C-alpha cells in the first residue's frame, strides 16, 4: 500500500486517495474539428507505460485537490508529486 505525498497535506496513506488515470490528456480545443479516430484516441486510448508514468490522483478523503504523481509502474516507486 502506497504512501503518497499530497502537495498540500504531505505524506498520507493510499486509502485517502482516489486514482484519476493518465495525466496530461488535454481536452481538444475544437472537438468538432477532429475525425472520429482522433476523438476516439482522446477518449479511449491510454498509455500502458512500463516505467515512470505521469498520473492524476485526488486527495479525496483529505483536501480534495487533484495533483500529479510520477510513479514507476514496475516497482511502484513514486518519483515525484506536484500541483497542477
Amino acid at each position, binding site marked *: *500500500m*502506497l*504512501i503518497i505525498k499530497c502537495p498540500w497535506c504531505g505524506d498520507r*496513506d493510499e486509502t485517502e486517495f*482516489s486514482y*484519476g488515470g493518465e495525466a496530461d490528456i*488535454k*481536452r*481538444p480545443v*475544437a*472537438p*468538432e474539428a*477532429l475525425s*472520429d479516430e482522433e*476523438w*476516439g484516441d482522446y*477518449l479511449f486510448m491510454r498509455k500502458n507505460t512500463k516505467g515512470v508514468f505521469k498520473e*492524476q490522483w*485526488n486527495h*479525496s478523503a483529505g483536501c*480534495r*485537490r*487533484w495533483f500529479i504523481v510520477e510513479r514507476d509502474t514496475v*516497482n*511502484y516507486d513514486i518519483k515525484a508529486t506536484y500541483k*497542477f
Partner: protein
Amino acid sequence: MQKNRLKSGGHIQRDDILNFTFNGKKLQAYKGDTLASALLANDIKIVGRSFKYHRPRGIFSCGPEEPNAILQVGSGSRTEAGLKATQVELYDGLIASSEKGWPSLHFDVAIINDWLSKMFGAGFYYKTFMYPAKFWKLYEYFLRKMAGFGYAPDENDPDYYSHHNEHCDLLIVGAGPAGIMSALVASQSGANVIIVDEKEKFGGKLLYSDEKIDNTVAIEWVERAQAELEKAPNVKCLKRSTAFGYYDYNFLTVCERYTDHSPETTVNSPRQKLWRIRTQSVVLAQGAFERPLVFSNNDRPGVMLASAVSEYIKRFAVLPGRNIAIFTNNDSAYQTAIDLKNAGVDSIIIIDSRPENSSAATIKTNELNIEVKFCSVVTNVQGSNKVEGIEIAKLNSETGLHDNELIYRDCDLLAISGGWSPAVHLHSQSGGRNAWSEKLHCFIPKNTHQKNTSVGSSNGFWGLKDCLEDAKKRTSEMLTDLGYELSEKISFDVEENNYVSMSPLWRVNDGKDPESHPKQFIDYQNDTSVSDIFQAVREGYKNIEHVKRYTALGFGTDQGKLGNINGMAILAEVLNKPIADIGTTTFRPAYTPVSFGVCAGQEIGEFFDPIRKTAIHDFHENQTSPFELVGQWLRPWYFPTQNETIENAVKRECLAVRNSLGIMDASTLGKIDIQGKDALNFLERIYTHDVSKMAIGQCAYGIMLGEDGMIKDDGVMTRMAENHFYLTTTTGGAASVMSWLEQWHQTEWPDLDVYLTSLTEQLSTIVLAGPNSRKVLKKLMVTGIDKESMKFMTFVKSKIDDIDVDIFRVSFSGELAFEINVDSNYALHLWNILIEAGKEYEITPYGTETMHVLRAEKGFIIVGQDTDGSINPEDAGLGWMLSRKKDFIGKRSLLREDSIRNDRKQLVGLLSLDGKTVIPEGAQIIRKGAHKKPIPMYGHVSSSYYSPVLGHPIAMAMIESGRDRHGEEFLAVASCGTEIEVKVVNPVFYDPSGERQNVE
C-alpha cells in the same frame, strides 16, 4: 494414558491436565501442548486423509508447514476449518476432528482413488470432468463430497475482532536466535522497535536446542533476552502474532491471537487483532524450513521431519516411536539421533546418502554407539496405516542411482531430513528476488526491493554463531542507515553444534520410470508426486509456474513451504537444466491462513457502512414508514396506515397527489452551489442546454453527459444571481457529480474562477405536490408564489413562519408543485408546520415508491434505472436539450458512427394488452411468434408500475428504434418465463399536454 509421553522434560505443565476430544475419542494432555503434540502423546497415528488419493496421513511436522494434520477445531459457532494441529495450542475441552475420510478415517471409500492412481495423474481433473458440460454439476457434487474439506459454522461468529494501526522504525519478524539478537541490538539504539513471533514463547529453534550461549543453555539466554526486551520502553513484543503479508512501502499486516488458546474464557477481549504496521525498515528472521526426502511411500503415518521429532521430544516430552530410523542427506538430522538417544531410545539407525565422513556430527553419534549406514538410501516404506519397516539400498555416489539389492529393516518411526530452505516468503512478497546458492543448495534472498534485510537462517546461515553474527551485523547496518548511533557493543559466547554439512539428494532414483514405483510424494498437501512432474513435462509443461498449476505443487496453505525446492530440483533434472534456471514461483500473502473475521474487524453489521438520515427522519420513523436504502441514505419507501399493503398505500398516496396534496422529503437530493465570475462559462461546458439563456430566477432541467456522450446525471439548475447557480443532482450521484465537476475544474480548466460547494446536508428539501399546494402556502402567508408572479420553472426567496426558504416551482409529478429548501436545522419544524396547515386538504406524506409511479406516469426517466451508462440523450428522448450553439462535455461523441445509428435502443412506453398485468422490470422484449433460436432481443423493460390514476399498468422500456414502433405489439418475457403481450406507446401516459401545472 499418554503412551508416548516421556517421564520428564519438555516445557509442559504436568500438573495442569487438559481434556480434549479427537474424532469423538476422549483424550488427555497437558497445558503447553499443541494439538499435534497432544495427539502424538496419545499415539494417534492417522489424523487425516490426503486430498486426491485419500491416503492415510499422520502428523509430519511441528510448525506452520504441516501438510497433513489440517483439522476442524472447536464446535458450534466457534468451529473453524483448516487449522494446522501443529499451530493449535491445546485448551481444556477442545474438540477436533479430521476433515477428510468417509465413512471413517480408517476406512475411506475413496481410497479407491489411490488404487486407481494411474488414472488420477496430473491434470486429471482438467481432462476428465470437462465434458459433457451439463454433467459438471454432478461431478462437482461428488468431487466436493470426496475432497471432504471442513465446514463453516452455521451461526454468527460470537467473537469480535479489532484493527490497530502502528508505526515503527524497525519491525523484526521472528523471535528465534537471529530475531532476538536483532532486537537486542535495536533496543539499545533507541529506535522504536516491534518484534513479532507466531508462538506463545520467543526462542524459535532454541526452544529445543542444547547449544549454549554465554555459558547457559540457549533457552535461558532466550528467557533473559525476552525479559529485557519486554522491559525496554522502545520495544513492543508481540507473541502469538504472525506477520502474514508484506506490501508496498513497508506496510505489513500482523495477526495477533488473543483468545484462540482458551476461547471459552473470552471476556472483553477481541479474539484476534489485525496490526497494520508501517515501518521504516524490516528485519526478516523467519528462519528456515526443513525439506523432506523423496522416495516411495514417503507419506506413510510415522514418517516425520527429523527436526520435528527433536522438537516433540524436547519441547513436549513426546516420543512418537521406539524403533527409529533416520534418513538424511545432511548433518542436522544427527542431532535428532542424539536427542533420541538422550530420551532413552536404544534402537536407532541413521541412513545417510553421503559417503562416510568425520564431521562433528558423525564423531558424536559414534561416541553414542548409534549405527550409521553411509552411501545408503531408503527406497520404500512398508505398512499402509503406519510405518512398519523400510527398504534400504546402497547408493552409487558416482551415478546418483541406487542398486536393487534391498535390505529390510523394522521400524515404527522414520525421521527424514533433506536439508534446509530459508523462509523467503515475506522477502519475496516485498518484491525481493532470490538466488540459487550452489554452495547451500537452496534459494537465498538477493536484491531487496524495499528497506529490509534477511538475517540468520532466513539468509542461509545455519550455524547458531553465524546466525547471531549475521543478525547483529545486518541490524547494526540497518540502524546506522536509519541514523541511529550504536553505542554499546553486544558480545556473546556460543557453544554450538554446527551440524550444517549437506549434500543434495533430490529424489531416490534407480534410473527406472518413476511410474514403476509406488508414489514418491513431493507435496503431501496436494498429493503431488514425482511421476506428476514427469507427466507434466511429457505433456509439454516446462515453466515452473505452469508445472505448479498443472500438478498443484505448492498450492493451498502450503504456499511453497515444504515441497517446492524438491519439486523444482526434480523439474530441473527432467528438463536437464540447472536448478538456478528454473526459478521460484510467486509467493503471495497470506503466509499462513488468516480468518475472515480479523480481516473484517469491526466493520460489520451496522458498522459496515455509514447510515445517513435526513433532518426529517424522526417524522418518518414515527409513521413507522419502511425505509429504502438509497446510497447510504435511509429514505421513506411508503407510509402505510395500519395493516395497509404497499399496493394500497402507494395507490392512496398517488391519488392524494393527483387529486389534492402530497408532501415528500427530498432532502437527499445532491445540492451544489456554484459561484464565481466564470460560473456561467463553466456550466456551459458541463450541461447540454444553453445555460446563458437562463434569466436570473429561472430554473431549468439539465443533463450532464460523460465525454463518451452517455447520460451521466440529471437535475434542476437554477440561476440565483448573475454569477451564482444552484444545482441538484440525483441522490446517488451527489458525491460523484461533485468530484467530477471538481476534476474538470482543477485538472482541465484551473484558470476559470469557479467555486463549488456541496450543500447536500446543509439544506433540506420538502416537496409540496398537488393541485392544492399553492393554497397551503397562501394559508401560511407565503409571498411571491401567486400564479401570476411565479411562473413554472422559476425560483423565489421567501419566508414561512419567519424561516428563510428558497422556493422552486418545479415538478417531478406533473402536478402543481413547490420544492422548498430550508436550513436543515429548521427542516423538521417546517415539515410539521406544512403538515398542520395541509390538514384541511388531507395532506399525505408519500415515499420513494409513489414518487417513482408519479414520474413514470409522466414519462420522466430516472438516471441509473432507465439509463445504464450506454444511453445517450437522443436515446432517452432528450435530443431537444442539446445545444447547437456551443461545445459541451460529450457533444463530439454524439456524432460518432455508433451514436447516430438509427437502430439504437430508444425510450418508449409499454402497455400490457390485457390491461391488468404489471410487466416485471428487466423483462426482455421479443417478437410475438419468434421461435427460432437465438431469438432476437429488441430491448428490455426499465420501469414498470400500476398507475392508480389511470387504473391500469404502465411501463417504460428501451427498444431498438422504439420511437418508430409506437403501436407495434411485442412479447415481454420475464426471467421466470412468463410471457406478457405488450404494445409500444408514447412514454408520457398522463396529461401529455402538461395542463395540470396551471391550476390556481
